[in-house]
């Protein structure tokens, strides 16, 4: 019979390939082939390593001031000199990365979480629920950002890492929420989701087993892109004096402190390194994001 013949053919084909190629493995292979993304990945690893292992590279405490040693030029003891309060610039740079990266990653994860839940509900249920939720997103998107942060900080009467994460998550979620809504709307009409409906799968099963796993690729891209955005945002806010207090070491804070005409000209060693770190981090995270997007692209064939 024809069916039998086909069956035999399938069996002989079996011996050719042994390894099961899961979608994840294929994506990893594609990612590894993207040189820029891999370079970005390793740059980021190095940045994370030097900030986490900061004590190995500098003996100084980034929060200990030393008024005997203010505004020193680079020397063997202080490779990047010291600033006006006597902080060691290298220590500030290395420890500052911890703060910047933690805030950026935490804020990105928080906004994603809010975005997935909000956008997921909106996109999955559709109809008037969707309409209502999206109008609220429109309002939030049009909210003036900086006054909102000022107001939040005035309400909570403090500034610091936690408040910065909260503020960024509370203001930045509408973008991801709208994005995730689009993804869910699209997935809802996919044949395999309809197929799950016809075999009698419950709403939750469909959401958690069929839809969410298929949003992870988009999510990974979105998270990496927003980490890049938030590193810049944190630095920008701190530079404006709206982010972290200057006692907390951070890249934005270093820039802010060096941002007067004289220091900019005479002490390039105090602001070029943090600026470089910010740029390097943003670039490498962006490259990773690009790489992930291409790696997860279902149209791409190996």
């Amino acid at each position, binding site marked *: 019979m024809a*069916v039998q013949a086909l069956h035999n053919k399938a069996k002989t084909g*079996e011996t050719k390939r042994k390894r099961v190629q899961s979608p994840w493995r294929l994506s990893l292979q594609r990612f590894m082939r993207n040189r820029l993304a891999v370079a970005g990945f390793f740059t980021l690893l190095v940045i994370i390593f030097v900030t986490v292992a900061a004590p190995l590279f500098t003996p100084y405490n980034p929060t200990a001031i030393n008024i005997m040693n203010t505004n020193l030029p680079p020397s063997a003891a202080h490779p990047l000199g010291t600033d006006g309060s006597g902080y060691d610039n290298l220590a500030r740079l290395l420890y500052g990365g911890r703060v910047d990266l933690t805030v950026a990653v935490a804020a990105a994860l928080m906004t994603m979480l809010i975005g997935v839940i909000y956008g997921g509900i909106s996109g999955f249920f559709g109809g008037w629920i969707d309409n209502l939720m999206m109008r609220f997103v429109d309002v939030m998107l049009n909210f003036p950002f900086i006054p909102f942060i000022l107001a939040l900080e005035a309400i909570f009467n403090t500034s610091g890492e936690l408040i910065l994460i909260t503020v960024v998550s509370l203001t930045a979620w509408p973008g991801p929420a709208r994005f995730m809504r689009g993804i869910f709307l699209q997935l809802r009409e996919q044949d395999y989701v309809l197929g*799950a409906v016809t*075999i*009698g799968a419950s709403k939750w099963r469909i959401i958690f087993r069929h839809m969410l796993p298929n949003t992870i690729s988009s999510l990974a891209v979105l998270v990496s892109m927003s980490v890049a955005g938030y590193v810049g945002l944190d630095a920008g806010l701190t530079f404006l004096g709206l982010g972290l207090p200057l006692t907390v070491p951070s890249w934005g804070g270093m820039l802010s402190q060096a941002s007067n005409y004289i220091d900019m000209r005479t002490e390039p060693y105090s602001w070029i390194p943090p600026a470089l770190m910010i740029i390097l981090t943003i670039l490498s995270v962006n490259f990773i994001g690009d790489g992930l997007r291409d790696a997860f692209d279902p149209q791409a064939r190996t």
Partner: protein
Amino acid sequence: MSEPLLQVRGLEKYFPIKKGVMRLTRGHVRAVDGVSFDVREGETFGLVGESGCGKSTTGRSILRLIEPTGGQIIFNGKDVRKLGRSEMRKMRRDMQIVFQDPYASLNPRYTVRQILEEPMIIHGLYGGSAERKKKVADLLETVGLSGSRMNRYPHEFSGGQRQRIGIARALAVNPRLIIADEPVSALDVSVQSQVLNLLDDLQKEFGIAYVFIAHDLSVVKHISDRIGVMYLGKIVELAPADGLYSKPLHPYTQALLSAVPVPDPEFKRERIILQGDLPSPSKPPTGCHFHPRCKDCMEICKTTAPEWKEVEPDRFVACHLYN
């Protein structure tokens, strides 16, 4: 004759057209506009028509993948539209669907085994995991694939093989009716006949009834017992397959049939070329929906909609020529 397995009565699906700031409903797209037909146990009912005539919407409405706006769907003596959620889930065991696009119909992050196991888990069939695994292998063998490939992902299979997996998923719950929504349109011609033969074999083996949706009359002829021809949301003619092909009654059916290629170079025949485009289902023509394109259009056709009449035993047509 015994009670038909599926009775569709006056099925309607109107999509609202919303306009303006207030999103007020300013009319409807009548995708399915009063469709009635029966499907008997173990038979194949073909549903043909142009793109956008509502045949897929009809199929999906029967499964309530799209909630119909009117009419009755009586499956196995029960009105599907009146079922509660848990009853509906039980009912889904008996009604399955095979999709057109074999690349979109399988979850890319599931292995074939997970895809086929899922319906069994949901409906609590076949006790333990070992038993399910055996059943998965059986299913794959049934559709002509090797059971040893169950741990592979859909992207590792070809279009025809994926369609077989889609069919296996539908079979996993032992359904009595499968809605096949253009199951071969996306496949290569060489693979089409294999999949059609598979569907035919499965019907003989398990006695499954099909609603076979297609836009290609030659494909439908191959597999159907009875055929309904749809035009702009309505069935215009319904007849046994042989009768429809040997003596089409409705002018639209005649035009469709004249477009089917015949494998005989000497054969000359008069092609009926349809004039104009398919009208918008939001503003269907007055009277008979087909009159602006009909070669036999009469005055009455422009004003009065034709009645749905049984002109011969088991042959229905909606056309003023036969009133």
